[in-house]
Structure formats: C-alpha cells, structure tokens
C-alpha cells in the first residue's frame, strides 16, 4: 500500500511573475501514483505556466517541485535527467517537422537515452501501435491531421517511460471532430495506471477521468476536490460561474460524443 500510494509529484508554493503580472501566486498540490489530476480554469490563469514550471522549461520565482522524492528545483543534478522522467504533451503538438512520425518517437530514445538504433525503432513502433498510428509511421508531421499529430506527440513522450505525464491543453488546438481520438488515448493511459496532470477545457473528460479536479483562477487554487464534488456542488461562487460558462461552450462529455 505504501508503494502504490507513494507521491510521485509534489508541487509547493510556486510563484511566477512575468514583468508586472503575477501569473502564479502560491500553487501547491500533490499527485500520487496512478492518479489523474485535472486542472481547469479561465485562460490566462497561469495553467500552462504551471506545467512548464514543473519540468523547469519555465523557472519559477519561488517554490519547489519534487519528483519521486527528489527535488527538481535547486538541484545540482542536470535537469535533463528529470525531464526524461516527465513526459510533456503540448497544445501545439511541437512535433519535429523535419523527421517522420517514427523518427519523432524514436529520437528521444536514441539521442537522449543513448539507446541502440534498432531497439529504439522497435520500441517506437510499439508505441505508435499503442496510439493507433503504425500505418502513419513514415509520414511527416505536415502530412498528418491534428489529431494524428497529437497522438504521435503522446507516443513520443510515452516511449521515454516517464513517471508522470503532463498534458497542456492537449485538445485545444484540434478541430472538434478530432478531439475524440486524442481523449480516447489519454483516457486509456489513465485506466492503465499512468500518473498524469492534465490541463484542459474538456469538462466531460475531466468528469470521467479525473481523480481530483483543481480549479485555478488568477494564479491561485480556488477550489479542489473530486469531480463529483466540483461539478455538482462547488464550494465557491467563482467555480460555479466558470463551470457554467464552460459547459455552455463545450457541453458534451466524452461519452456523449
């Protein structure tokens, strides 16, 4: 029990200021093994910045991050070691345009982990199969649809065998009809026990997959709790207001699609 419920990711008192604006004002939370935390909130509330502070693509002004008990911020170790254990999926996919899908997935194994090329290729192919794209393996990013691109980018992150996956609004840049295939992949990850932090607007998805939902506004955590609690009986007025606006816009849950 101690093993299964260990804390994989711990975030404590993260502060970040851009020029005059304080984007994050003391964010703290924990994620245990196998949990899926979903972060919701209005645009500009700092959600993307928060994710980037976790893997130090953005350096927070104050605060600490721990991965599996080791401190990531203020560490003597190279940050690259930690990043290998944190998979990140971007809103804009950020696939490497000059290599094909298979190449995108295997490059981390070859160039970062130093894996043998043949073994890396095998693993990459496996991962592409998992997201349903083995037929598109030799296509280039520019030849893929948005949903396919995002699935490749998920495979690229997964193949590195991370301890936690960070999703930054993975479906926000997709056309509506392509959202479903990506949410499906993410849902399966959750079911299979991956530890995840997902920033999203997809309320239906949040409801069906999250262990806990965190509502952030103006850089602070306003509300947090189980999906049931947050969606049916939120404590705070602002949470209610936000959810009302969002469900107006985004409506359907994953199942209803």
């Amino acid at each position: 029990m101690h093993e299964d419920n260990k804390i994989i990711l711990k975030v404590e008192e993260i502060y970040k200021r851009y020029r005059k604006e304080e984007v994050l004002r003391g964010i703290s939370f924990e994620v245990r093994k196998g949990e899926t935390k979903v972060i919701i909130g209005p645009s500009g509330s700092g959600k993307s910045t928060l994710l980037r502070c976790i893997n130090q693509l953005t350096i927070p002004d104050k605060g600490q991050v721990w991965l599996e008990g080791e401190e990531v911020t203020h560490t003597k170790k190279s940050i690259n070691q930690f990043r290998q254990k944190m998979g990140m999926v971007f809103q804009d996919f950020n696939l490497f345009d000059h290599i094909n899908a298979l190449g995108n997935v295997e490059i981390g194994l070859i160039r970062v982990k130093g894996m043998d090329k043949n073994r890396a290729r095998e693993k990459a192919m496996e991962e592409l199969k998992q997201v349903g794209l083995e037929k598109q393996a030799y296509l280039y990013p520019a030849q893929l649809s948005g949903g396919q691109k995002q699935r490749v980018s998920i495979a690229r992150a997964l193949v590195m065998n991370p301890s936690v996956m960070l999703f930054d609004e993975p479906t926000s840049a997709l056309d509506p009809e392509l959202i479903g295939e990506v949410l499906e992949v993410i849902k399966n990850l959750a079911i299979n026990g991956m530890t995840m932090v997902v920033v999203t607007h997809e309320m239906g998805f949040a409801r069906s997959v999250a262990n806990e939902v965190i509502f952030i506004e103006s850089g602070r955590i306003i509300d947090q709790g189980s999906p049931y609690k947050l969606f049916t009986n939120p404590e705070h007025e602002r949470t209610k207001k936000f959810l009302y606006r969002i469900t107006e816009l985004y409506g359907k849950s994953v199942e209803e699609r």
Partner: protein
Amino acid sequence: MIDLYFIQDVLLPPLLEGVLVTVKLIILSIPSGLILGILIAVGRVYGNKFISSLCAVYTIFFRGTPLLIQLFIIYYALPSIGIFFSPFMAAVTGFILCSGAYHSEYIRGAIQSIKTGQMMAAEALGMSRIKAVLYIILPQALRRAIPGCSNEIIYLIKYSSLAFMVTCVELTGAGKIIATRHFRYTEVFMVVGIIYLLVVSIVTKFLSMAEKKLKIPGLG
C-alpha cells in the same frame, strides 16, 4: 571581325588554365564559407553575450565593407604587420571570411524563424541545448536557409573574379592579360562572359534541384 583561330589557339588555352584556378578557388571557399557561416550564426543566436557580440561585429564588418577592400587588406596591408599570404591564399581567405558573414545572416534568420515550440519539445524530452540545436534546430534551419545560401554561392562564383585584383590569375585575369596583349577586348571578354554564364546557369540549376530533393515532405 571575330577571329576563330585566335579564339581557339591563342585565347582558349590560357583561359582554361584560368578556369582551373577559378574552380580551385571556389571549391576551397564555398564549403568553408558555409561552415563558418553556420558557426557564426549559432554563436550569434545561442552564444553568451561575449561570443554573440563578437559574431555580430564580425558580421557587420564583413557585410558592410566591399570584398575588394577586404582582399586588399589581407594581401597588401597585413604584410606590414608580418602576416604574408600568397595571392591565391589571400583570395581564398577573403572569400571564406566574406561569404561566411553573408551565410551567417541567412542561417541566423532561418534559425530565428523556427518556432520556439521545437526547442521546448526537444528540451522537454531531456535534450541538452547543444543536442537540441544539432538534431532539431539546425536540420530545419539549414533547409530554410538554402535559397539564401544558394544565392550567396552563386555570388561567390562571380566575385571570384576579384582574385585577379590581388594578382591571382583566374579566368577573368587570364582574359585581361590576353586581351591587353592583343588589343582584342571585346572578343576576349565575350568568351569569358559566356563561360561565366554557363557556369552560373549550371550551378543555379544544380542548386535548385538540390533544394527540391532536400525539401521536407508536406511543407510548402
């Protein structure tokens, strides 16, 4: 008016020798200039303040002054502080330094046109800066820089004629010598001109074929 025997017997042999020198000049200068350009561009974009400024100053000087003056400084002025170059090496050095600066500007523009997301994704995977630049940024930037760099390569082929101004006898120089000796400027330089036109056209064609081959599938 146009004396074919003259062209065949008197003109062509020295001209062909000159062509050989021109070819040697460009074969040495073009790849080196490109490599220098890549180094300067990377230094400018990713280097620390000192390196970046150094690269900037270098670029400003070599793009802001005529190639001919650079050649004169290398061949005629440097000896006064003890640095001696042969005419050929002075020309090659000048060409490499000058075209390196132009290449670096094209490559720098290309690097800066690549979305920041590419670097972010590379770093998110755990790549160090150096690896990210080498495996992700440069392969894309170099492709984008091909039109500009091809342009610069064609320029260098034409400006190789300036080697004559520091007494290295390449194609143009050979022509001038014969023309002066026989007072046949028009004919000589028409032939010289035709040779340059041919070389430039062939290389242009070759470079645009290379550009097509190296294109990333799917991208415009």
